[in-house]
Every structure is written in structure tokens, then in C-alpha cells.
């Protein structure tokens, strides 16, 4: 459908041009044709009347058959100015400027029927009116009878052709002017229609790009204004609903943050109590000792969970702040391993001299999470590698366990996601990797999970060397 690919403006232009042209062609054509007919008719009638007039004023015919001299005198009486004449009688002919061969045979045949006849012919490209008549003789009873003398006269129509050509030129220039006018009008109309359409398009694009406050301008009361109104109503409803959803989500997050904060104080007290219990549990006999140790362990887990929740809430609220420092990454990794007591369980490849501007506390959290996960869920040997490329620091933690199942891989950074539902409760709530990823993002870096050949999970932390840009 190439016709439809023309666009609104093109179609309007075409329609206006066709309308303007056809109207002008019709009007100009009809009036041109009419004027041409009138001009020709008048010229022809005048020429015929003048010939008839002159023929009836000829001197009376003395002899029939006429002598050559008589024919010539008739011819010279009838020829007038630029109009040459020819007089024929049987085989005789006389004339100046008009030869017998110039008379069309059908005109010659028609002349013998006793009426004045004429015909437009073209002589060397010039239109000529050939008029012919037979000279009649008056009878005593008032009638006429043919004498056999035929009189022809040629009347050039060059002047009339000139007038008609001028008419045609006028018609053509009228057509051209009307085409220009039609195109101008079409452009004007197209602008009137297209401007609201393109404004509506812009508003829709802004809305699609996420600007929920995007509105179209409603002008007038036509169909386009109706569309703009509907668009505005839709956008308004969408904005309201999205706003409500956001508010609800924010409420939920604030609730979590508030709860976590409220739990912190009693938990601190409980932790203090369980510290005492821990010391005493060794002295408690049997089940009482076990219960005391369980309470102590779970209290620690709960405290960790609350800390994690508070950390996540800070990320969600956008209040997590970076405290950057120039760090030697190899030293930072070693410190993390040392403080957790993992130095013996992990093989490292840590080239010295790799530095970056990072938050040391957050880097420690991320590294501890990556290595801790590898030790807990993977199989030894666990390796930690440090590399620096093109302004990025890359830390890779790999294990030789079964690796991550594809379904796990998609959700490994989700909150409260546990790959194995039967996993021991002591392993944590499932917020560790989520917090690690948020920390990496806060630095302007990423954390990616994957598998490697032949088996084993790989976590790759990529951080910018020169701090957050």
C-alpha cells in the first residue's frame, strides 16, 4: 500500500491539488471552448456575409458561358485585401492567389447544391476559412437558377487563432495560479491538522518514556481535541494509580524500617542477656544447657536479620552513604579473610598494588558474603582472585561445588531467596547477596553470578577504581 505511505500532509496536498486543478480545468476549459466557438463563429459569419454581399452587388452577367475576361473581372471584384478569390466555370478559372487545387473537393461538391458553404482548412499550418458559393441568376418569377459560375474566397483565420491562443495561455496561467493557491491552502490546512497530532504524539512519547505528568494541549472542540482529552484522562488515571502503588510500596518499606528499628533496642538487651546465658550454659545440666545455647544462637541470628533489614531499608530509602578511602584491595581481601578466620580455607591470588577508592566497610561486607557463600554452599577448594583492568577492579570468588542451577541463577540476588528450602535456618535469612549487590551498585559497579567449567559457582565483583563517578 504505497499510497498510504504518503502521510497526512502528502494526502492533503494531493487532494487539494487535484480538486483545485480539476475545478480550474473544468471552468477554464468550458469557458475557453465557449469563447473559441464564439470567436470562430463571429469571424466565419462576418466573412460569409461579406462575400455574399459582394457577390450580390456584382455587375450583371452579360454572357453565359462567360469569357475568361468576364471571369477575371468577377474574381478581381470579389477578392478583397488579403483574401484571395477564385472564380470557376466548367474548365475555366480565374483568380488571384487562390488556385483551383486549394479548394477542397468536398467543398467544390457542396457548392453545386445552391447554398453558401464554408470549411476551415489548414494551408501551410495557417488556419484558413474557405467559402464557396455558386452565382445564381434571378428569374422573372422571383426564384433563382444556377449559372454554373462558382465563386470561392479564402479568409485567413490567423488573427482569430492568435486570440484563441491568448485565451488558452490565460487558461493555463489560471490553472497554474489555482494550483499554487491549492497547495498553499493544503499546507495551511495540513498545519492546522498536523500540529495537534504531532503535539499529541510528543505527549504520548513522553508518557511512554515514564513522564507520568505528560499532558496534551486541548484546543477547540474537534475530534482531535476529543482524542487529546481522552489521552489526558488516561494519563491522569495512570499517574494516580502509579502514585498510589508507589505510596503503598513506600509505606511497606517504611513499616519494615520502623519495625527493624523498634526491634533493635530489645534485641540489644536480649543479646546482653544471652551473653550471660552463654557463659552460664556450660554449667547448666542437660536440656537446660542446650536450650540456653539455642536461645543464644537464635538471638544472634535475629540480631543479624534486623541489622540486614535496616541496611536494606537504607538502600531502599536512598540514605545509604559511601565513606570512600584509598584502599589496597589485596590487603582488604586478606583482612576480611583473616577477621573471619577463613585464611586457611581459601586459596588466594592477590597481586599487590591494586588500589581503588572504595568504602572499606561495604567492601568487607560484600567480600565476606561472597566467600562465606562459597564456603557454605560450594565445595572446596574456594579461590579468590584479584585483577585490575582499564580502571576496574575485578574480584572473582569460585568454588568447586555443583554450581548454581539455572532456576537459582535468575533469583540468586532476590531478597529472602533460598536455593534450598530445606536449608538450615542458621544459614541466614537470604538477604546477604541482595545487600552485596546493592553495595556493588552503590559503588557504581556490579556483582554477577555464574557457573564455570567443569563445575562450580563463580561470583564476580566489578568495581570502579577511581571511586563513584
Amino acid at each position, binding site marked *: 500500500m504505497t499510497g498510504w505511505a504518503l502521510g497526512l500532509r502528502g494526502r492533503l496536498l494531493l487532494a487539494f491539488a487535484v480538486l483545485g486543478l480539476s475545478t480550474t480545468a473544468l471552468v477554464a476549459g468550458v469557458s475557453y471552448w465557449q469563447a473559441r466557438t464564439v470567436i470562430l463563429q463571429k469571424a466565419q459569419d462576418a466573412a460569409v456575409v461579406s462575400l455574399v454581399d459582394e457577390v450580390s452587388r456584382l455587375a450583371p452577367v452579360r454572357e453565359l458561358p462567360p469569357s475568361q475576361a468576364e471571369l477575371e473581372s468577377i474574381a478581381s471584384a470579389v477578392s478583397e485585401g488579403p483574401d484571395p478569390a477564385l472564380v470557376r466555370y466548367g474548365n475555366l478559372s480565374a483568380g488571384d492567389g487562390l488556385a483551383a487545387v486549394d479548394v477542397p473537393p468536398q467543398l467544390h461538391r457542396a457548392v453545386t447544391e445552391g447554398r453558401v458553404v464554408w470549411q476551415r482548412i489548414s494551408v501551410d499550418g495557417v*488556419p484558413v476559412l474557405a467559402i464557396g458559393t455558386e452565382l445564381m441568376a434571378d428569374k422573372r418569377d422571383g426564384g*433563382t437558377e444556377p449559372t454554373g459560375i462558382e465563386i470561392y474566397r479564402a479568409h485567413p483565420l490567423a488573427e482569430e487563432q492568435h486570440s484563441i491562443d491568448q485565451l488558452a495561455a490565460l487558461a493555463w496561467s489560471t490553472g497554474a495560479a489555482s494550483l499554487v493557491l491549492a497547495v498553499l491552502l493544503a499546507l495551511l490546512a495540513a498545519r492546522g491538522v498536523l500540529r495537534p497530532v504531532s503535539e499529541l504524539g510528543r505527549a504520548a512519547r513522553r508518557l511512554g518514556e515514564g513522564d507520568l505528568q505528560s499532558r496534551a494541549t486541548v484546543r477547540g472542540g474537534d475530534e482531535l481535541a476529543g482524542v487529546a482529552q481522552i489521552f489526558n484522562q488516561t494519563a491522569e488515571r495512570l499517574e494516580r494509580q502509579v502514585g498510589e502503588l508507589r505510596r503503598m510500596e513506600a509505606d511497606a518499606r517504611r513499616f519494615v524500617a520502623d519495625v527493624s528499628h523498634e526491634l533493635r533496642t530489645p534485641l540489644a538487651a536480649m543479646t546482653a542477656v544471652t551473653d550471660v546465658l552463654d557463659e552460664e550454659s556450660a554449667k547448666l545440666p542437660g536440656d537446660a544447657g542446650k536450650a540456653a545455647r539455642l536461645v543464644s544462637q537464635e538471638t544472634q541470628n535475629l540480631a543479624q536479620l534486623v541489622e540486614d533489614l535496616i541496611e536494606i531499608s537504607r538502600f531502599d530509602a536512598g540514605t545509604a552513604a559511601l565513606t570512600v578511602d584509598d584502599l589496597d584491595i589485596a590487603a582488604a581481601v586478606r583482612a576480611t579473610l583473616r577477621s573471619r578466620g577463613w585464611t586457611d580455607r581459601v586459596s588466594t591470588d592477590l597481586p599487590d598494588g591494586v588500589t581503588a577508592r572504595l568504602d572499606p566497610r561495604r567492601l568487607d561486607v560484600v567480600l565476606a558474603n561472597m566467600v562465606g557463600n562459597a564456603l557454605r554452599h560450594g565445595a572446596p577448594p574456594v579461590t579468590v582472585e584479584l585483577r585490575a583492568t582499564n580502571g576496574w577492579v575485578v574480584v572473582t570468588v569460585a568454588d568447586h561445588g555443583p554450581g548454581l542451577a539455572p532456576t537459582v541463577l535468575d533469583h540468586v540476588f532476590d531478597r529472602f531467596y533460598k536455593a534450598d528450602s530445606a536449608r538450615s535456618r542458621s544459614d541466614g535469612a537470604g538477604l546477604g547477596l541482595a545487600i552485596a549487590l546493592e553495595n556493588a551498585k552503590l559503588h557504581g559497579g556490579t556483582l554477577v553470578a555464574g557457573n564455570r567449567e567443569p563445575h562450580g559457582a563463580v561470583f564476580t565483583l566489578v568495581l570502579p577504581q577511581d571511586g563513584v563517578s
Partner: protein
Amino acid sequence: MNRRLLAVGALLATLLAGCGVRPSGVITGGPAPANTISGLRLYLIADGRPALVARGLKPLQQPSEIVDLLAAGPNAAERAAGFTSEVPAGIAPVKLTSEGTGTTVALAADVDGLSVLAVNQIVCTVQAMAGSGPVTLVSSGTRRGPLTCPPLS
């Protein structure tokens, strides 16, 4: 799309055909103009039909001489132009008498021996000179008429 092109082409062709001054067919107008004949009118035969000739002679002494002129036949110029006459020389002398509106022509030869063309020649010639009344031809005992000249074409 093709049909639209054809329509536009046909429209253009019509417009162009109407342009300028084009040759036409034969247009027929009013009756041919007439003039008077100053000479004597005679009717001779051309192409098997009576046809008008005129002779620039001095006026006749006797009206009947006009029929004598017919009997004498075409002169040299008329013969050269293809005219003939069927009126026999033996009909002279002739007498013309007026009877009311009509004219009676008394011939020396037998009227029944004249061809139709010869009769028409005489009737037309006499009517052209004496008026449009009917003409009766008589000879010893026989008569033809009253007759009128058939319209010449």
C-alpha cells in the same frame, strides 16, 4: 492506478483536441446569392439537362425570334463549353401569342416529333422572356401543354 492514469490521459486528450483552430467539415449556410443577367436567356442542353446560357445581343425585334435562336443551335463559344441543342431547325418560323397569363407558341414542325428536352428548352426559354405563365406548343392540329419550365439544379 492504471485506470486513473487512463482517465487523466483521456481528459488531457479532450482538452488538447479542443485547442486552437482545427480544420472542420463542410458547413452549409443560407441560399447562394443571386445576380441579374443582362443578356438574352436561352436554355441549351448540358449534361443531358436544360441549362441557362446568356447572349449579350441587342434586344430582339420580335419576341418569337428567341425560339428561332434556339432552333439555330449553340454558337461557337457555347459549343466549346459543351452545350448542345435538341430543338430542330425545322420548327421555325414561330409565332408567339399571349392568351391570358399563358403563352401559345405556334411551330412550323410537328409538335409530337419534339423530344422532351427540346420541349423543355422551348418552354423555359419562352418563360424566361415572356413571364412565368404556362406555355402551350401547337402545330397544325396538335398541341402540347400548357407546360412550365422544370426547376433547374
